[in-house]
């Protein structure tokens, strides 16, 4: 290395050191701290109960059925419960269409009885086509719907329909698995018709068909829901008929219009059995400004 080159190098290094040494060091102080937590993503779920208790056989003595259905949000997210109904293939769609349904939310299953009046928020239809029983539910919460099923006169006798109720709980774009519950609705064989005789509106005589039962078998005439209200005196086959005046029909059953009369066999204590021997319709009306009754609808 020549003397001149060394001199130049020394000069450059001196310049670098001088220039570099004149500036400040820019390292900044810092400190750190850490904190932690956890989040959980929820899920949806649903459960359904009460439908297994809804299997019923309608007859002249069982004319309606009132039972609760409980919808439960079994997930961890608040959501909306919705239902659909369907009729299993092979069962009677005609019967499902002929059974009217009204459903309304109640506070608890115990608040759903045959005497409970239909409440607010009710939906109605048939078991072939029933609007959704819709409830907004918090996670884990339940809603009870009271259902009242009443077959219409067009319901076919000796029919069975298998109804499925499906429940889904949705939360935003998420939906639970569909849960289902089912029950069967049946109708008994048509009861023999009563033989009815008019007496100018003053009263009617309704007679049940003769049978091979002992002549001293006791019978009662019943009206009202599920044919639960006995009217008139109990009778035996010796007499073979009931005499019914309009005043004998309780006002809470009807004050006018058609009334179904069902004749049942009574047990030894005088209470009705499930055996229906005949059924028919009488009609209350007004005649000469007074109560009157006649045969037929």
């Amino acid at each position, binding site marked *: 290395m020549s003397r001149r080159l060394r001199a130049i190098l020394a000069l450059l290094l001196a310049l670098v050191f001088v220039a570099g040494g004149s500036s400040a060091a820019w390292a900044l102080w810092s400190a750190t*701290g*850490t*904190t932690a*937590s*956890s989040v959980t993503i*929820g899920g949806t779920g649903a459960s359904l109960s009460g439908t297994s208790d809804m299997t019923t056989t309608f007859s002249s003595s069982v004319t309606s059925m009132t039972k609760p259905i409980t919808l439960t949000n079994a997930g961890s997210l608040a959501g909306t419960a919705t239902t659909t109904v369907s009729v299993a293939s092979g069962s009677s769609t005609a019967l499902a269409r002929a059974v009217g349904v009204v459903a309304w939310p109640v506070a608890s299953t115990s608040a759903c009885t045959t005497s409970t009046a239909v409440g607010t928020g009710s939906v109605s239809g048939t078991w072939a086509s029933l609007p959704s029983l819709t409830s907004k539910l918090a996670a884990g919460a339940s809603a009870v719907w009271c259902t009242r099923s009443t077959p219409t006169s067009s319901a076919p006798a000796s029919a069975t329909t298998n109804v499925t109720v499906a429940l889904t709980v949705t939360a935003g*774009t*998420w939906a639970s698995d569909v849960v289902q519950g089912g029950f069967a609705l049946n109708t008994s064989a048509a009861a023999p018709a009563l033989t009815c005789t008019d007496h100018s509106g003053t009263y009617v005589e309704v007679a049940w068909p003769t049978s091979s039962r002992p002549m001293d078998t006791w019978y009662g005439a019943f009206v009202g829901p599920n044919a639960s209200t006995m009217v008139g005196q109990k009778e035996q086959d010796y007499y073979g008929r009931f005499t019914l005046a309009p005043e004998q029909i309780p006002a809470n059953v009807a004050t006018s219009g058609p009334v179904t009369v069902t004749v049942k066999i009574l047990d030894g204590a005088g209470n009705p059995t499930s055996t229906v021997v005949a059924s028919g319709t009488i009609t209350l009306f007004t005649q000469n400004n007074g109560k009157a009754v006649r045969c037929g609808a």
Partner: protein
Amino acid sequence: MTSTPRTTGRHRAPRRHRWIWPTVIALVVAVLTAMLGTGGTYALWNGTASTSASTVRSATAAISTGPLTAMNTAVLGPGGGTTGTFTVQNTGSIPLTMRVATTSTKVSSATNATTAAVLGELSLRLSVVGSAADCRTGLSGASGRLATFDTGSGSFTLAAGARAVGCVEMDLDADAPQSVAGAVSDFSLTVTGTQVTP
């Protein structure tokens, strides 16, 4: 034999620099004259004094972070959010500019989705609030996916001794697939306070 005396001497050596001495003498005289004329001594002024004793201390940079409150008291659904708060205090002696970033995540209980799928549906938002009671969903602030959340430097500044409340909001995308249901995500946030640039 007699000799005749010489009437002229030998050549004398030539006189050189005969001007120096007069010049020196003239300069000395001039200087002395000038000095006498100014009257100054040409001595430099100086003086001394002492300051009172003092101590020089180095500044400190330190922060203290509190625990993030439980955020799994409410579960997340599609489009839903949950919040939590933590405190951070500048316990040093210089102002600090703060940065908050996710430094670890752990996904568990995801039976139908991968970790990446779960983290890909979670977003984190950070805002600074006056108190924990002010923390709620929907506040504005830095946001990003949980796994890569980073406010960057200068998120907020804390003077020495100052304290702030961080509001952390975790959101699940509204279109999150149902396969992420049930997943649990643990995460850690690191708060870094850096000396404000002088």
